[in-house]
């Protein structure tokens, strides 16, 4: 059962969108199938195929990747921790 909650939002990361959230999920202790998340070094073709299986169009995938140009990483290459993921 899903019910609709959160219209309202908190001032957290300023500039972010207001997202409607649905509530009613049940938990499991069974881990997700391996390989469901993208590898950070995946090829464009692999990423396109992986996200197509999740229902993402290529344009949506491009938007998702583009959003990472404003992010930093800390764990893939600890020597470069907190540097921007976009080197341009």
């Amino acid at each position, binding site marked *: *059962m*899903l*019910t*609709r*909650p*959160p*219209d*309202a*939002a*908190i*001032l*957290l*990361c*300023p*500039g*972010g*969108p*207001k*997202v409607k*959230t*649905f*509530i*009613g*999920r*049940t*938990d*499991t*202790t*069974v*881990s*997700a*199938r*391996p390989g*469901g*998340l*993208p*590898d*950070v070094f995946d090829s464009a073709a692999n990423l396109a195929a*992986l996200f197509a*299986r*999740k*229902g993402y169009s290529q344009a949506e995938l491009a938007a998702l990747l583009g959003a990472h140009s404003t992010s930093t990483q*800390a*764990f*893939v290459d600890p020597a470069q921790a907190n540097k921007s993921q976009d080197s341009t």
Partner: protein
Amino acid sequence: MQITAILLPGLLAVTKTTAAPGGPEPRVEARSSAKCPAVWTSVKAELNQRFLVGNQCNDLARAAIRAIFHDCGSWDTSQGFSGGCDGSLVLGVTPDVELNRAENRGLATVAAYLRDAAGRFSVSVADMTVFAGSESPSAEAPSGTSC
């Protein structure tokens, strides 16, 4: 024809609840008119405190955005109504500990927080993960609006 019109929705409802033998019950009914459970107002107030420093979200808030994707993003269309946002990022121990996978490095702190908060507010870890991840990028001032 009138009978058909009355019966059909009932039959569909039965079909839905029995459609996945052995699997989780389909949870497909989105009640757009349902009122948000009051507990989420309290959750939101806590997240507001924990995720904000001054006017900026902090590392815990950023990790919460990462956590929602790492719990939910493992889903694909072949899994139907299972998998995805099911709390397994935090709770999954079979056959391996999901949180210990390489791709989940750095999420231990937020995972511990989500598990703790879900327990304190008596909501599922899956819901807490999604709520926290959705609230993090939100941009409105605390409005006091219900949910």
